């Protein structure tokens, strides 16, 4: 069952076409990867789906609803949460607060109830604190709960970003290079971990990643972008043997061109 579908989304920045006619389809509980050389337009595609950019043309359909042009917060509220390529935590705030804030969008109490700690807010706060603590424990950050988030080591900051995204209670999780800066051991752990959260939280996962080992080991399907154009789509085996993909990544030798 398709949960997210993009139809020919195109993003132009002035004269530059960053992404051209991108057609993505995500099915329930799939893990799909988006790969491509640097500057291929992967993050731009991500930003269009999450509402940071409004596509120049094309439409994005999430569970039958058109979401292109909605603000990022509205899209997150519908159930698409993301992490960032360059970690964007709330640096000065504690690990717990980082995750707690991601629960804020589901708060029903108004600012008056919250300030004066009226019963509804107290009940909601208790629930959200419990959920935040549960997520922090789930991602193995329990001992750092009250530490400033910027004091965590790099790998744990990435985990915290995932915890924070999960706290918004998403249906689709978009990960922008989750393994960037991780060593091989950490990358292996991440592979298992992504599958685990997919099953536990009933997620569909769409990720940008450069670690081929991770991508090939985890993805159900892969899209390949080069210069904004989708050059291939398929399962890991098909992608690994696709001549256009090999060409985009490695280039072609002069002999082969003849």
């Amino acid at each position, binding site marked *: 069952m398709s949960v997210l579908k993009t139809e020919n989304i195109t993003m132009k920045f002035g004269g530059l076409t960053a992404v051209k006619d991108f057609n993505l389809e995500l099915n329930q509980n799939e893990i799909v990867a988006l790969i491509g050389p640097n500057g291929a337009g992967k993050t731009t595609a991500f930003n269009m789906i999450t509402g940071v950019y409004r596509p120049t043309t094309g439409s994005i359909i999430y569970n039958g609803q058109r979401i292109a042009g909605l603000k990022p917060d509205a899209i997150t509220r519908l159930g698409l949460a993301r992490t960032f390529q360059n970690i*964007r935590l709330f640096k000065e705030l504690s690990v717990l607060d980082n995750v707690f804030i991601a629960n804020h969008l589901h708060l029903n109490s108004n600012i008056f109830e919250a300030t004066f700690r009226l019963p509804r807010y107290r009940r909601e706060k208790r629930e959200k604190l419990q959920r935040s603590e549960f997520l922090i424990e789930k991602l193995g950050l329990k001992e750092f709960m009250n530490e400033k988030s910027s004091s965590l080591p790099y790998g744990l900051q990435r985990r915290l970003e995932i915890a924070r995204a999960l706290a918004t209670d998403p249906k689709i999780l978009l990960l922008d290079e989750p393994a960037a800066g991780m060593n091989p051991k950490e990358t292996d752990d991440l592979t298992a971990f992504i599958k685990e959260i997919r099953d536990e939280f009933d997620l569909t996962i769409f990720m940008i990643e450069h670690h081929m080992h991770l991508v090939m080991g985890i993805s159900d399907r892969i899209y390949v972008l080069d210069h904004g154009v989708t050059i291939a789509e398929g399962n890991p085996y098909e992608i690994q043997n696709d001549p256009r993909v090999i060409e985009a990544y490695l280039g072609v030798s002069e002999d082969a061109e003849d």
Partner: protein
Amino acid sequence: MKRRNIILTSISILLLLVFIFVADSSFDAYKVRILNLCAIYTVLGLSMNLINGFTGLFSLGHAGFMAVGAYTTALLTMSAATKQQNFFLAPILPPLDRLNAPFLVALLVGGLLSAFVALLIGAPVLRLKGDYLAIATLGFSEIIRIVFTNTQRITNGALGLKAIPSTTNLWWSYGAAAFTVVIMALLISSSYGKAFKAIREDEIAAESMGINLFKHKVLSFVIGAFFAGVGGGLLGSLMGTIDPQMFKFAFTFNILLIIVLGGMGSITGTVIAAFIISSAGELLRFLDQSINLGFVVIPGISGLRMVVFSALLMVVVLFFRNGLMGTNEFSWDKVIGLLQRRPLIKRRLGQ
């Protein structure tokens, strides 16, 4: 909260009450006025810190909000006869001449009106960021001032309002300051306050976490303006006279100084800095007189205290980049931890 902390807090509140009582009944007018200013600047500082320090909006429109609050409170508390005396160039606009309200109501109306003005201008200007927001809000406060200078029949124009009933006393000003501190502390520690801080830390991430940037910015702006209006009302009543010249940019700058000195994003820091800024100018007054050091007599140079004051500010900014408190807050646990810490030499010997 631990029992010890509750006891310590109760004792402090009691001591503060005793102090206000003593000060109110036996201090001379000069000291009482400085103490009043300290409390009012606390209210104004906290209101600006919510917008600039906690939500990270670089707004410079504070004098405008204070003006709205000050004028509203003044017009609502002045008697019909006083108003008639004031408005001798042009008569006051009809419903205003008879409009009257008790001081508390007048303060709240002043705050609400100021909040309403913030809502009106917040809707367009809060779409701007950084320096652009600063310029737009600065322009707004100048517009308010110019409008107030020209609405002769409402604000009495450049003549200002005189003989405003001076209701502000230590109970009012410290009551307002305490109320503001409590509300701010509760707001900041609530889910909304945390959302404000998230916007300050990283707007893009906050938006991606489902926080409606515009709604939260407007909320912070409007609540800040409410307290600025209340502070302005208290100040007008304390001074007894207000005119548009009072609400120039320099006034906003004074409040900005308080929150930068205390720490952008610290309630404790704002309170401390409000007391320092409003009393330092007076405490350093001895520098203007000749000082006898025993072996040499330094002749008095008038204005020297301002030189020293500026130098002190520079030292603070140089050595405490984030203000006196940074984003830290006061807690009994920290104070007691600090008191119990043994000197380094003893710790070494003990081992």
